[in-house]
């Protein structure tokens, strides 16, 4: 008998989740909760989109309903709320109540920040957990660990929208933190040039710095460099177009024209390069007769994209083709 028990214990110690489940006592079986009358969910007479809740889920939320009604804000309720949030971190009312308890018990907010860090690590793409973190950091008025924390989360998934959105909030709310952000972004782009979130963050940083011409020109050169390495990367091309919103000539900027022509003449047929070359013609409204060659070139690019280089967008490129014809009142027989 003893041996069997021994064996059983060592088995379950390898499966700590299972052990937790085995040792877990429902609230209705806990003597220290005997004074609370649980409240079952009142779903009304009809059964609509019912969920087959586990015993544990129903038990925890039956007791949660009870304390919410009695407004008990105690240490034991903090434990109950922690269980409820593990079962459903998307229930924002539980988060609201947790905050009430934290304030009432004067819980050390640094401990609370550590708690929410652990929850976020488990539920990285839940809205409510990030919202709660924001509230705690606002109350602490101390963002010192926030860039490192979000960097950790982005290390798990460098495109996590929640983490980026939260990071932008930190950077704009506590403005001094922006200094090193370009380095952070640089690292991410070097690691994965296709990380569109990182390119967006780059624009966010540059845009917030009220950039002068020098900054924009430096960024254009940086982007040229990345495009030369990976010319099929839409993120870099979009970023380039974004930078040109700062320039008076927009896409007609000489260096963009030169860069694109050179790349094309070298035989590069990235769809984004070709798209950019088409736009160069499209943006040029001058009716100079020598434009005919340019228009013919743009039309050829549209045809090539539709038939060879970007056939999935065939209908799109056929439409752009017709659009250019129409805009320049151009028909093949004119030539």
């Amino acid at each position, binding site marked *: 008998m003893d041996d069997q028990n021994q064996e059983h214990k060592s088995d379950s110690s390898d499966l700590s989740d299972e052990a937790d489940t085995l040792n877990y006592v429902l609230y209705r079986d806990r003597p220290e909760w005997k004074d609370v009358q649980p409240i079952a969910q009142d779903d009304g007479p009809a059964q*609509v989109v019912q969920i087959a809740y586990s015993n544990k889920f129903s038990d925890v939320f039956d007791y949660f309903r009870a304390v919410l009604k009695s407004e008990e804000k105690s240490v034991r309720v903090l434990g109950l709320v922690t269980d409820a949030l593990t079962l459903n971190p998307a229930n924002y009312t539980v988060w609201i109540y947790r905050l009430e308890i934290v304030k009432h018990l004067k819980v050390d907010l640094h401990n609370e920040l550590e708690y929410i860090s652990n929850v976020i690590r488990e539920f990285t793409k839940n809205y409510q957990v990030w919202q709660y973190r924001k509230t705690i950091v606002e109350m602490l008025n101390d963002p010192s660990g926030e860039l490192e924390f979000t960097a950790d989360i982005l290390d798990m998934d460098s495109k996590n929208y929640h983490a980026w*959105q939260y990071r932008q909030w930190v950077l704009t709310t506590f403005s001094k933190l922006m200094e090193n952000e370009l380095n952070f972004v640089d690292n991410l782009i070097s690691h994965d040039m296709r990380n569109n979130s990182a390119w*967006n963050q780059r624009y966010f940083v540059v845009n917030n710095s009220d950039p002068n011409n020098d900054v924009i020109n430096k960024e254009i050169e940086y982007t040229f460099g990345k495009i030369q390495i990976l010319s099929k990367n839409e993120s870099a091309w979009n970023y380039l177009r974004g930078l040109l919103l700062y320039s008076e000539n927009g896409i007609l900027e000489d260096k963009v024209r030169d860069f694109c022509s050179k790349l094309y003449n070298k035989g590069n047929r990235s769809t984004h390069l070709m798209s950019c070359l088409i736009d160069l013609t499209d943006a040029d409204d001058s009716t100079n007769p020598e434009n005919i060659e340019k228009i013919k070139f743009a039309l050829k690019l549209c045809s090539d994209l539709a038939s060879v280089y970007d056939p999935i967008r065939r209908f799109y490129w056929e439409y752009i083709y017709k659009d250019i014809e129409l805009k320049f009142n151009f028909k093949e027989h004119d030539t």
Partner: protein
Amino acid sequence: MNKPQLKPEQHKKYFRRSLDLLPGEVAVFDYSRLTILYFALIGLDILDGLDSLTDDRKKDIVEWVYRLQLVPNEYCSVHKCGFMGSTTVIHLKNHPGSEKYCESNVAMTYMALCILITLGDNLSRVNKSAVLKGVASLQKPDGSFKSNYEHGESDLRFVYCSLAICNILNDSSSINVNNAIKFISNCLNYDGAFGQNPGTESHGGSTYCAIASLSLINKLNHVLDENKSKILERWAVNRQTNGGFQGRPNKDPDTCYSFWLGATLSIMGSLNRINKERNRDFVLNNANLLTGGFSKNMDSIPDPMHTCLSLCGLSLIGEENLNPINPALNITVRAANYLKQIQGDYTLPNQNIFNTDTDC
């Protein structure tokens, strides 16, 4: 290779099962069960399958939804009014002092109204002025809307839901429409599409929320001139990769974006620029032939949201045997026509109203 075929009966069964009972694993949706109800009913309507529910069942569902309505009384102030997403804390509905914990959510109110319209309810029991005041109380100084009053987050999703509610109830006088437009404009990014908040990355879902919102208030051209429309159109068309649509550049495709981007392009009148056949194949290849329903990709299991939005995406590109949808409200055209009909009954003359026409 044989072309994949839509199996409507399987998906109807999937939705009918979802309407009855869901497995314990979806307990994370406990606080937003109304969203599952919304996806199942809109999906059934697209499949022309509402008739498979008995009148009693429809009545039960309507009653269940109305129970989630919070109306102003001594325990509930008007700024908390609207619909809750589930019955989780419904026991507090008339309990003194629990206002903080028993409040509406604007996404749930939007979905509740869509469900009621879809089931042929005339909204006569919706406390319209309270709902509109509840929506108004969620608007922030920057023009955006929060999801709910207490600590709710704000972004384009809730701007869309708020404007859709005002559109359905035919009254925008309680909110600041100009500020909402300003907020939407501020979410427009350097790449021509929209992020959830100013500065955040462009995303198919938030781009839909922006475009659908602007279309509902007839301000599409106000924010997007010809050039901006062209850039957004290119961004949206570029999201088609490998057949299906991705939500952001350099991400994997997912069936729900066939709706978010398909509807965006449809509202802009540009849906013909995509490759419908490849899009169709991608979506249909993610149908589960065993259980019914659609998943987001090959590595996932079906869920009501992806099933509904897959069908919405297929309907937009003219899949046979599917009812057409109104892409700005995301209900069927049949339901949207019914809405227009009942709006005449509850809209007073000379009220400040939106035009409900969309561009498609």
